[in-house]
């Protein structure tokens, strides 16, 4: 090594020794001055690599979300199909009618409505409201009809308990009763009683009322079940008449 080389080497050593002797704050200041310039290519490369990494992670996340959404979509599609089937079962043709009169001697037993045979209404068509069964048409004129309600004595409809599927007959005799229920059938308070669809008049699944009281009679076979009607006849303003019976259509299908 020549003297010149040795001299330059010695001078070169001053730089690292000076830098090493600096306090941490001083080192950071020096780094802050030179790093943006000298490390620019490194930052560009690492930034690009990080961008690729983040993009890759995002793609993986999105793919995961797509798979979850696909699964959800399949389930929703199945549910929608089920609901369509349900709708087909309950696709009533309804005629909205306004109550225009009540029988003064039996204020909740009979209702006069403003639609008649001109509107496609016929005797023995079911009448419902948003809460459940109201009754059936007893008489039709051209532009008006008379509805026998569940509150009329001697009103009867074939019914079943929605929870247990126990069949019986709902009849009105002073109170609405669910009859022909054997003493060992499991019917509980607050059970929902719906139409069974066994008659030609009422489609199945319309809520008639709720079990409010159960009495054990002296009868050895049946117990006495009292219902509260679902429809509050004395508060009704509009009713809907079912002009088709979807159960009949289903039964007529091959």
């Amino acid at each position, binding site marked *: *090594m020549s003297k010149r*080389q040795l001299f*330059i*080497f010695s001078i*070169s*050593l001053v*730089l*690292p*020794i*000076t*830098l*090493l*002797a*600096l306090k*941490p704050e001083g*080192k*950071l200041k*020096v*780094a802050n001055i*030179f*790093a943006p310039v*000298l*490390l620019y*290519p*490194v930052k560009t*490369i*690492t930034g690009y*690599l990080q961008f690729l990494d983040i993009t890759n992670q995002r793609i993986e996340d999105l793919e995961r979300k797509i798979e979850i959404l696909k699964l959800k979509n399949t389930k929703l599609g199945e549910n929608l199909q089920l609901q369509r089937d349900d709708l087909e079962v309950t696709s009533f043709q309804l005629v909205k009618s306004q109550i225009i009169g009540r029988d003064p001697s039996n204020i909740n037993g009979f209702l006069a409505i403003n639609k008649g045979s001109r509107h496609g209404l016929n005797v023995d068509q079911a009448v419902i409201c948003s809460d459940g069964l109201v009754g059936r048409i007893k008489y039709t004129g051209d532009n008006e009809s008379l509805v026998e309600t569940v509150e009329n004595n001697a009103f009867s409809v074939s019914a079943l308990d929605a929870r247990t599927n126990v069949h019986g007959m709902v009849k009105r005799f002073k109170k609405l009763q669910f009859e022909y229920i054997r003493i060992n059938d499991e019917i509980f308070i607050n059970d929902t009683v719906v139409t069974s669809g066994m008659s030609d008049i009422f489609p199945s699944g319309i809520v008639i009322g709720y079990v409010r009281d159960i009495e054990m009679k002296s009868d050895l076979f049946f117990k006495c079940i009292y219902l509260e009607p679902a429809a509050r006849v004395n508060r009704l303003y509009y009713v809907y008449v079912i002009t088709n019976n979807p159960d009949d259509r289903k039964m007529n299908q091959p």
Partner: protein
Amino acid sequence: MRFVLYLALFYLFLPFNRYIDLIAIVIFFIFWHENNWIGLLYALFVGFLIDLYNPSRLGLNILIFLVLGQVIIYVRDFIVQNLPTTIALFSAFFLSRVIVISLLSVTNFHIWSIVITFLAFIPIYLGLHKIVYRQWMKT
């Protein structure tokens, strides 16, 4: 042209230097084959570059590369350049660097990083030799 290649390699290897010390291999190649001034310049530049990447030990890598580089430049006149001497000298150079850094900056050895660097030395050295001098090894 090869000086640009060295620079490009430094920048390329710098982000991965924590895991595998490829920069040590390239700077060793420069000390081993280039003249004194080029060796000195690159030792300053690369040492500063690595230190900027980790400013808490600013100046340490410059010092190590300057001293070890001058040692290699000095001893190479007395050694025949072949693969065994090259490996032996690189081993001495690299281990000295690791030990000094560990002693001065009080950091632990990363044994896997050292092993991988040793394993990567021969292919990278020969590859560089092939690119710069059009042959695998000086004979």
